[in-house]
């Protein structure tokens, strides 16, 4: 997919470009906010990765103005300021995701893909991955036609995984989206939640759906 990277630090931009290119994205770079905004408005990109602190125009203003112009390309803001208030400010301006620096490359790649995948979600009332089915209205989950009994939290975890099926979701993405927690737990808390969920959806079936992606996170895939 085509990614616009708006970042003024040339070293950082080049390193991100290389990582995104290695993940099979076509990357173009803008070195300041104004250039970034005009490229974003006309370039037909799939995802925009935007630094918060930019010369000429701040990232938050760029997003706000793009949204006012009716540009709905998903935007990920990168920021060294990742306290709650800055995050909320960025999301309120119209950004779709907010990632605090420092971040791992894998985290960034996973989020860029998730943005692309999630661009027209929320209209679905049913989710399906292989023979796993989720009915969002009745709040039921079935696998191979057999009803699974999930706790509310497990349901939300599975819902997020299903919405992002086929791609890697990181522990941080799960924390932020399923629990709305914006700190790093020091223990393997997420792994245990995943393994409990896995025991419910995979244990009695030959084919595993919930995979661990070493070093990155998890992927739900048929």
């Amino acid at each position: 997919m085509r990614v616009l990277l708006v970042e003024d630090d040339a070293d950082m931009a080049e390193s991100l470009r290389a990582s995104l290119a290695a993940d099979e994205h076509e990357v173009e770079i803008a070195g300041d906010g104004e250039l970034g905004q005009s490229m974003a408005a006309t370039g037909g990109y799939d995802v925009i990765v935007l630094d918060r602190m930019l010369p000429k125009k701040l990232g938050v203003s760029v997003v706000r103005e793009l949204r006012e112009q009716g540009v709905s390309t998903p935007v990920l803001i990168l920021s060294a300021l990742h306290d709650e208030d800055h995050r909320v400010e960025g999301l309120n301006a119209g950004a779709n995701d907010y990632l605090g620096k420092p971040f791992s490359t894998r985290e960034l790649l996973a989020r860029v893909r998730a943005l692309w995948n999630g661009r027209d979600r929320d209209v679905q009332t049913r989710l399906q991955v292989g023979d796993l089915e989720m009915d969002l209205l009745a709040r039921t989950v079935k696998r191979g036609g057999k009803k699974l009994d999930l706790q509310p939290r497990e349901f939300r975890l599975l819902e997020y995984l299903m919405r992002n099926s086929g791609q890697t979701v990181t522990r941080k993405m799960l924390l932020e989206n399923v629990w709305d927690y914006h700190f790093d737990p020091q223990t393997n808390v997420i792994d245990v939640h995943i393994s409990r969920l896995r025991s419910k959806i995979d244990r009695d079936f030959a084919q595993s759906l919930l995979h661990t992606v070493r070093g990155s996170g998890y992927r739900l895939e048929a």
Partner: protein
Amino acid sequence: MRPSLALLRTTTFRLALAQAGVVLVFVVALLVYVYFATIGQLVADSDVLADQEYAALERAYAEGGIRRLNQEVVERAARQGPLLYVLAEGNGVVVTGDFQQLPSLPGESVQRIDFGFESTDAEGAAQRGRARGKVGRLLNGPILLVARDLGDSEVMSGRITRVLWTVAILGVFLSIASGLIASWLASRRAEALASTARDVMAGDLKRRAPVRGEGDEFDALAEAMNAMLDRLERLMQVSRTAGDAIAHDLRSPLTRFRQKLEAALEAPADTANDREALRKALEEADSLLDMFAAVLKLARVESNPNWRFERIDASDILRELVDFYEPAAEEQGRTLRGEIAPDLFVNGETGLFTQAVSNLVENALKYTPEGGHIALTAARRSDGRIEIAVSDDGPGIAPADRDRVQERFVRLESARSSPGAGLGLSLVAAVARLHRGGLHLRDGLDNGEGKGLGAALVLPAAA
């Protein structure tokens, strides 16, 4: 600035001047009142009395003519009393009465008259007096004057007036004098506060404003100032020791980081070894970045007052935290249970509040041995505040060390081997202070040999 002039500019002195003004206004008001209550009343009474007498004499004239009138005037003038009479012919020549001549010739109509006169007292000494009454021409010409001697009351009201003016002048003088003294005293105490502030600015952080123990507003100000200075001193101390601690704590991971890269560079090229060295270097870099993030977050919590506070449902957040950590605790052979009263609300920042409690839970998970128990309890205390406690049956912390572990970068010897920068409890304490509460470390659950650790966040309840 000359001190004498400075004194005149003080608030207290201005208040004293205002007070002097009030005294003056009060005395003038009192004078007006006294005048109306004495002279004014007397004049009114005199007018009534003079009218009655005049009317009676008019009747006598109408019934008995000039002879009868003359007789009445002679009789009445001879009586003791404050009333004075004069009967004169139409041309003003006095026929009979208390005076040898009229004070003035009346016009055609009956009129009020207010006049001075001289009389002789019993010893024959001349006396000046004042009288008020009515004078007019009767039918066919004779002039009749009836008046009341105002003498004594006039003297009395003069005395009262003099006393009041004396009081007024004394009052104004005393107000100004007491204002000067009060402003001198007040500026002396304000100067003591100001000199404390100047000394502190000059670098003497130990200096404190004097508190007299009288519980007055200056003491309150001095106490508030001293509390501020205590906090300032603590912050200075903290930033000084934190600087040292950061330098010290960063040195070891940075050294390891450098050493690993150097060793990999110097060793013969070996892909597997190089990758392992890179992986380890990355881990070190991550732990350094985590430490920076923790320091920055702590600094932001301690120095930034602009967090967006809202009414948050603490019970809900705490139940979710128990749900979040319970599976991991169980996996690690520890029991985490929650006893959370419903409907506990606090004013706070959701993210910070959640992280603070999660730090406490993670600390408990880290320091409680396998098979241990951890309880997250939350309830409203009898004083109305909300207490959120994480108690464990781990090794605990000796009471002597409990204050120290809340300082940043402080890690007890027993914790040296486990990961962490020693910022967790500092952050919790800082978040508690931000929420106008506190973190209290105390005995936790019984661990067989003694007590584990109990960490209690005590926060004010939201309305």
